[in-house]
């Protein structure tokens, strides 16, 4: 990646998603008209399009729902044949798939990876296709910018809900431990106390975090932001500097150390990544953990969680500069794809990801299908277009919402006021990778020296940042 691009990302920096939230909170934000059904020029010849499907291990109901959506799409677009492929974005497998050419034509990427993929010429320019959609201009520009190249063209399309990280908790374990499931913790001290009570009373892990495949660093960044820390700072020259040894990270690690070693409330398994922690949580082995607010959908589809046990709370924020790490998923098309593939891809992205936000008919059709197939409908999300649009969308689907929203009010009532922060802008995954061992050390070594561990991790991260900025 060129230094220019890196500087551009850095310049957008921490404020972009914060601006997103601010824009979304504005009641005057423009909303696409419900009558503006997505349109796109059709491929000239019959096209076989491969797209990402569900997570590996998705329930039969989820698979049936996807199959039905594919059928609806193919009926509406007779010259496009869609083949779905199981897909779970993982830092450690995505690059292999990308390099090996085994990704489907349409695939999903995190917001933060889009700029690098564009700079590397690894995803197709979708600007022509985007312009044909009525809602193309109605994206919140602060969301759309993640997928735009230095030429201003749209390459990656905002696809899945923009999220903030939430505190997920098991209401059943709360009750068993004598805690009130309607009063989740609001400070880190309360999280620690509740975790200890859960561990003491139920033998489950009270609180634990992900540790592997860069997710340890990801969630440590969440905990750092919640305490007002930052993993990188960007100087006036646009150069990023690693600040992994900031007070927020130290406090976050000390918290983990206390939960693990003083309270013995973190359980006994510290080989956890995004998938395995979800699995353990759904199985009732974990009282609380942090992850994206939208993880409920996956917990149902891949882990068959019982809705009654699920609760979502706001992460405790301490200090004026504290905020919530945000993110989201974009849809991208392989570089070098033909015009027809890109046209077909735009139609699919529109149908599968976006049409529900712009057309009541599509919103109802999509969610009715999901509802009939017992899939989660109405999982909380941050607005992708505007606050008004999200409200409108949720009004459309209100009769179909089947997720336990009353178990999520702590989060949904507070998220609007929270500052949403971006991931570290430069060498993001390398920074996370440098932090994984630190989290593992704190969980597995009673005498872990937090200062020394962070000093070493900071050097590793700075090395990667310097290389990325060369």
């Amino acid at each position, binding site marked *: 990646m060129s230094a220019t691009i890196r500087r551009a990302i850095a310049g957008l920096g921490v404020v972009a998603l914060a601006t997103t939230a601010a824009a979304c909170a504005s009641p005057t934000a423009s909303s696409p008209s419900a009558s503006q059904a997505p349109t796109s020029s059709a491929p000239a010849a019959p096209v076989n399009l491969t797209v990402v499907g569900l997570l590996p291990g998705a329930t039969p109901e989820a698979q049936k729902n996807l199959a039905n959506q594919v059928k609806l799409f193919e009926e509406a677009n007779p010259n496009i044949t869609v083949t779905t492929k199981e897909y779970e974005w993982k830092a450690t497998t995505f690059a292999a798939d990308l390099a090996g050419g085994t990704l489907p034509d349409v695939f999903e990427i995190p917001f933060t990876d889009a700029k690098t993929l564009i700079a590397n010429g690894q995803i197709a320019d979708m600007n022509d296709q985007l312009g044909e959609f009525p809602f193309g201009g109605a994206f919140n520009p602060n969301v759309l910018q993640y997928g735009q190249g230095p030429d201003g063209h749209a390459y990656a399309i905002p696809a899945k809900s923009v999220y903030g990280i939430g505190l997920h908790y098991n209401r059943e374990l709360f009750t068993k431990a004598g805690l009130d499931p309607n009063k989740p913790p609001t400070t880190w001290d309360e999280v620690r106390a509740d975790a200890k009570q859960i561990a003491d009373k139920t033998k489950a892990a009270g609180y634990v975090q992900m540790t*592997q495949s860069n997710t340890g660093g990801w969630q440590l960044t969440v905990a750092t932001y919640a305490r007002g820390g930052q993993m990188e700072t960007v100087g006036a020259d646009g150069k990023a500097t690693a600040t992994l040894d900031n007070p927020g990270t130290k406090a976050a690690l000390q918290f983990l150390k206390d939960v693990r070693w003083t309270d013995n409330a973190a359980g006994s398994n510290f080989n956890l990544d995004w998938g395995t922690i979800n699995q353990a949580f759904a199985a009732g082995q974990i009282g609380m953990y942090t992850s994206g607010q939208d993880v409920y959908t996956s917990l149902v589809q891949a882990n068959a969680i019982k809705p009654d046990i699920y609760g979502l709370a706001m992460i405790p924020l301490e200090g004026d500069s504290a905020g919530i790490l945000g993110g989201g998923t974009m849809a991208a098309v392989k570089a070098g794809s033909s015009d027809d593939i890109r046209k077909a891809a735009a139609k699919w992205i529109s149908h599968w990801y976006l049409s529900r936000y712009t057309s009541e008919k599509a919103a109802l059709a999509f969610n009715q299908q999901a509802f009939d197939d017992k899939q989660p409908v109405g999982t909380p999300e941050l607005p992708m277009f505007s606050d008004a649009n999200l409200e409108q969308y949720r009004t459309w689907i209100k009769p179909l919402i089947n997720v336990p929203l009353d178990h999520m009010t702590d989060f949904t009532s507070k998220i609007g006021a929270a500052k949403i922060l971006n991931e570290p802008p430069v060498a993001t995954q390398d920074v996370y*990778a440098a932090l994984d061992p630190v989290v593992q050390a704190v969980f*597995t070594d009673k005498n872990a020296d937090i200062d020394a561990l962070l000093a070493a991790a900071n050097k590793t991260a700075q090395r990667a940042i310097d290389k990325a900025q060369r």
Partner: protein
Amino acid sequence: MDSAQHSARRRGPLTWVRGGGLTTVVFALPMIIIFGLFSVWPILRSVVMAFQETNLTGTAKWAGLDNFAWVLSDPDLPIAITNTAYFAVLALVFGFPIPLIGAVLMSEVKRLKGFYTTLAYLPAVIPPVVAVLLWRFFYDGAPTGVFNQLLGWIGLGPFPWLNDRLWAMPSLVLEATWAGAGGTVIIYLAALVGVPGELYEAAELDGAGIWRKIWHVTLPQLRGVLFITLILQLIATAQVFLEPYLFTGGGPNKATLTILLMIYNYAFGASLGSDYGAATALSMMLAAFLAVFSLIYFRLTRSWSQS
């Protein structure tokens, strides 16, 4: 006809074809093509890539020795080398004698030999990933974990297994030994069949017991096989990847970070995989080391294995 004329006719193309030369080539061709395409070509590409900066999509840039310098200055490299050597030593201590003892004992067994052989080989039939996932379940560090419960019955544990710096690597070696022993046992059993029975008879006439027969007859007769399996094991352990990748991802806190895992992390650890150059540079260095090591090994052991 003089001998020169005779020789010329013998070397002619037609004679070569009639002599089966073409058939040999035709039979060998699929193997040569497959080997060339899937082994030689990737190796050559790797050598080139070690001197490039590439993301495999755009145009590669020549990077000189930058990738090698980057790898050699990585603070994780000494950790990975130490861990890999530690794995190799542990695998040698546990993994080398166990199959040998097993094979010798099995060769002495008169009844149910097939049953024991099947039992020993069974782990080799289980797909490695499945085996690791199974053992990961066994290694649950909670008191209710399978191994911890079993050991608890005899008053041991609970042990943290994969969740502790000291325990993690031996836990990996234990599974690797279990998984790999079966194949080696079969090799030893086959070699044992080749040991002439007269040698045992002679030893018995000289009053040798079972241990003396093993020490003075079996082991010397297996010497060649032992040297080969030893070097194969050393090369395999230097390239250990599956166990640390699937069990621990190199953790906790780099306790099981091996050279191969480091190569993988260079190439694929960051989601956008920008370090294929560093990955192939480290691969080249490892390959060079193993080649030199193998040469020295064979040079040192040549006289022993032939005597």
